[in-house]
């Protein structure tokens, strides 16, 4: 029976086919292990979770955290001598998201991920929670997805799927309005579709935001795009 750990829509695990809420105490450890695709040494995990504690205290905290996870009936963490890892065969939704994003970035996307609706809801780690320790993990995830979306947008522009290309770039922009590469991807998509006016508007919007938030002019590359003949791949709109 599959075991799965879900961190992108609420937080729960499915253990032996039964839905189990994740105990508050072990959540940080589970997130830490879920975001890595390799085992982690106990000492590294303890240091990551309690960076300002002496190692011996951190190790003690970790032991107690593992014990409580077990007590809560959440035996998702295996420990092999000095290593910690998620139980073999655990399906983790956030790891799946990371893999999909990496496939896109490496230029080997899965077919379904070429469709903008696959990225319509850019999921958030443990949505609805407001914990400081989560923010670096969320930032890391957003960065990865943003980079995947920019790559996706360029890819879609090259294959003449402009509607999807525009949306992928807009999704990246929504994750970070100051992401200049995402803004460039958007302008390029509009230009490739033949929509000079949309490209100019997109550039002007970004210029306004960059001036307001950063006090700087956008990169010359962006503005130069508007005055050069756009690449027009010969393809039909899909």
């Amino acid at each position, binding site marked *: 029976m599959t075991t799965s750990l879900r961190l992108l829509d609420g937080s729960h695990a499915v253990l032996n086919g039964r839905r189990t809420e994740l105990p508050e105490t072990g959540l940080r450890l589970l997130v830490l292990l879920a975001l890595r695709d390799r085992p982690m040494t106990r000492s590294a995990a303890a240091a990551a979770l309690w960076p300002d504690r002496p190692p011996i205290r951190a190790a003690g905290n970790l032991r107690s955290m593992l014990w409580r996870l077990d007590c809560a009936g959440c035996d998702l963490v295996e420990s092999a001598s000095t290593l910690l890892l998620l139980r073999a065969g655990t399906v983790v939704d956030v790891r799946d998201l990371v893999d999909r994003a990496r496939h896109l970035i490496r230029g080997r996307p899965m077919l379904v991920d070429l469709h903008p609706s696959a990225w319509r809801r850019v999921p958030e780690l443990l949505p609805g929670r*407001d914990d400081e320790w989560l923010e670096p993990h969320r930032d890391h995830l957003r960065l990865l997805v943003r980079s995947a979306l920019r790559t996706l947008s360029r890819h879609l522009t090259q294959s003449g799927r402009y509607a999807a290309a525009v949306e992928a770039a807009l*999704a990246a922009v929504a994750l970070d309005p100051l992401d200049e590469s995402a803004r460039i991807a958007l302008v390029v998509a509009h230009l490739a579709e033949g929509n000079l006016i949309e490209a100019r508007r997109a550039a002007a919007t970004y210029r306004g935001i960059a001036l307001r938030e950063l006090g700087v002019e956008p990169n010359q590359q962006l503005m130069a795009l508007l005055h050069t003949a756009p690449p027009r791949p010969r393809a039909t709109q899909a």
Partner: protein
Amino acid sequence: MRTDVVAALTPAVRRDELALHLIGGPYVVEAGCRRELPENSRRVLALVALRPEWLSRVTAAGRLWPGGDEHRAAGNLRSALWRMRGAGIDIIESDRSALRLRPDALVDLRLAEDWALRMIDGCPTSTDLATIGWQAHAFDLLPSWYDDWVVLERERLRQRMLHGLEAMSRLLVREARPAQAVKAAGLAVSTDPLRESAQRVLIEAHLASGQLTTARRCLHRYRAVLEAELGAAPSAELAALVG
């Protein structure tokens, strides 16, 4: 009402359900009756509705009442939710730490964007190609709101709808229904006369109905508008369409 997104895109059996209108809104329609929202809960509802999943109370309060006083923001949020419930509008689910839109509520924005996506994907349902009219209103997402999170969402919907209308026009040409194709393209053009991809489908739709002269006139008019507004010319591909 033909122009209502929810009415146009929802099967008759679901029309009595709770619907949130963000287009021209926000307002709620329950069992056919329009319910106005208390002033201070409108922004809360819109913010929650634009997010696909749970939104933490802290994030929501910080977004809606920025400026630092967290206690005050949290209090404002509680009061806004309380007033909405007091008005009998039960559309937000909440627990101690987070909020979300009730998953069974219809949202006009989602219906409209799904319609457009079916057009872009080239797989409309039997009724999708029949209705034209509500699309003209779909561009008014939360009109006169200028928060960053609204502006981005409005632009995303605008692009989706324009691409949807352009795709619709192409599908209708393929189905040998050029008159309807002209109508769909015309709507895209009237929304944004400077957008070349919209002009292109309009010209193609006129050509499909054998109206070469009208197609040429469209190109001339577009050339004049583009020259006046942007000092630019239509692409060579567009000009080549009408010879």
